[in-house]
């Protein structure tokens, strides 16, 4: 049952996709022990694409996007991010991680640091940016997610929606070229979902390449240029949002959509 959290009209003309390939996944397989979570996944994402990944619980959505910045290791196949192939080579991993930002379902802010420190930690220690500069960048992105006034508070003092926006800002401070979202709104109260989605839409309008696992179908329809449906660790169907929702091809997809949209 998705309520219409998207109110703000999205200017689709701003959403441009280039021909450059941002992420390329070829015949990728992953096992947890004996359990085959991801089966022969193939996916090419161009720069500027906004991809929404949907599918029933346990279908491997999270695992897929966590493989993209190597929070999980894949066992066969290739993952190439921005021209860098993910192997066990630490340098490549570092490179990919500095290009790819990630936002988690439970925010995972660092509770012992202020909002500002959360945002400057990685730039200072990974990118070796001077503190002053890092703070300026951080304030810039905090303004963008509309909470500059909270900069000196601790995460525990913020509402869930505010925390998730800080998490987005924290990722942005590393100036990633690709953003991964893993159900960024599913731990939030309804009122707060909107503010987070608004932030994400803005990001999309600025041309950020995004992969987003979400159940917010309104968001998918408004922003995504492709919806990918996964089940049992495989990509079952992908299509543009209009066709995906109005004219699903596979049985699994239809069944899933009927459940989720309450038809």
């Amino acid at each position: 049952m998705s309520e219409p959290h998207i109110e703000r009209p999205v200017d689709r003309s701003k959403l441009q996709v280039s021909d450059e390939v941002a992420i390329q996944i070829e015949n990728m397989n992953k096992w947890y022990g004996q359990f085959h979570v991801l089966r022969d996944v193939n996916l090419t994402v161009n720069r500027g694409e906004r991809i929404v990944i949907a599918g029933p619980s346990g279908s491997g959505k999270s695992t897929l996007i966590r493989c993209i910045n190597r929070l999980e290791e894949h066992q066969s196949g290739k993952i190439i991010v921005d021209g860098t192939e993910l192997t066990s080579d630490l340098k490549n991993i570092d490179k990919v991680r500095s290009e790819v930002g990630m936002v988690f379902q439970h925010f995972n802010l660092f509770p012992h640091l202020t909002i500002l420190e959360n945002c400057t930690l990685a730039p200072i220690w990974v990118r070796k940016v001077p503190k002053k500069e890092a703070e300026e960048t951080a304030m810039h992105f905090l303004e963008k997610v509309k909470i500059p006034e909270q900069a000196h508070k601790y995460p525990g003092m913020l509402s869930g929606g505010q925390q998730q926006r800080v998490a987005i800002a924290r990722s942005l401070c590393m100036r990633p070229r690709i953003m991964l979202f893993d159900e960024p709104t599913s731990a939030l109260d309804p009122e707060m979902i909107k503010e987070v989605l608004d932030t994400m839409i803005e990001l999309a309008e600025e041309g950020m390449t995004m992969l987003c696992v979400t159940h917010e179908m309104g968001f998918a329809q408004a922003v995504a240029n492709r919806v990918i449906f996964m089940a049992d660790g495989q990509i079952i169907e992908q299509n543009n949002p209009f066709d995906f929702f109005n004219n699903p091809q596979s049985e699994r997809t239809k069944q899933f959509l009927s459940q989720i949209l309450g038809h």
Partner: protein
Amino acid sequence: MSDTSHSAVFVRKTMLPPEPAPARQTGLSKWVRENLFSSWLNTILTLAGIAVIWGLASHFYPWFRHGVWNAASLPECRQIIAARWGEGATGACWAVIHARWTQFIFGFYPPELFWRPVLTFGLMLVAVAPVLFTQLPRGMLKFSVVFPLLAIWLLWGGSIWPVVMIAAGFAVGYLVARILAHWGMILAILGAVVAAVLFWIFVPGPVDEILGRVAPIALEPVASRQFGGFLLAITLGAGGIAMSLPLGILLALGRQSDMFLIKTFSVMFIEFIRGVPLITLLFVASLLLNYFLPPGTNFDIILRVMILVTLFSAAYIAEVIRGGLAALPRGQYEAADALGLDYWKAQRLVILPQALKISIPGIVSTFIGMFKDTTLVTFVGLFEPLKSIPDSIRADISWKGTYWEHFIFVGAIFFILNFSMSRYSMYLERKLKRDHR
């Protein structure tokens, strides 16, 4: 619009079946590689671990293997070992345990009466079971309430009537409390205490005598001095915990109270007890209690130690229960208030049942700590199993010179009892966490 043009439409026609993981992902070799030799650091650690195990085993195994179970004295043990394994071989002389194990377990309790402590501890398990396992019928709790007095009678023996009188005192107090409850709880508690004390002072003497003559139900009395070994340790530990529960609850409530004086006294008591080592309190029991009581009062050292052990564990139990009280949401207090329950009724019917349940793991841990600490009574001349009993056994010329056997035997028993209890309390903690979600 360049927006959707790019996206390739894809529909999977055939589902892929799951495939087995690649060979290097499975099997023993993978396990060994991942768990023992995943990096050079791990390899070093593994080798070091193997070296430690080998070192210990090669050192101690012969000693164990050469162990002698049947001998009348240490020299005889040595002879047997020398005869069997050659001159210079060392070995354990388990014969000392074999000969004296009853002393480790029961101290100097009369052997023909061993059935009594055994029965008592069997019954203790029955009494404790409904508290620890909530699945059991609640009716069993009635037995748990009666059990302490039954245990006293079984362990110390003597006529049953004094014990019955103690129970009767409680009953009288309870009745008075029921009657006075109408006029407020403070009055009821005061009245109950006064009534019970008056009852205990005046009634038992004559009544015991008459009843003792009319219906002489009695067990052969056993003096406290004859208690020793694990019997003493468990009696002190379990008795201390059981008696400290009511006091601990009151202290916990006192510490949570918003009345300044009550809170202050509770805090002072708790912090004082927790701030000094148990051994100093045992000294108080054995050396100072006589100063603090009216001249001429003099009672059993075990009872005195028990009193101090009770005070000691009460302070710790109070802290455990305070944790349980704090874990309850405020709404429970408010709902009870709104229904018109007064403070004591709310505590008794709503708050404590829940707080105590949450506190059980903590209480079990406190008990483990207490049980270990009972070994300290060796310093006031009681025969606890770890030091006094071995020392007294070594005062026998036949067993002079046996050390490790005692340590290992006593340590093993402590370990088995405490380990199983701590596992239980962990299980309980996990279960509570699940229930409370």
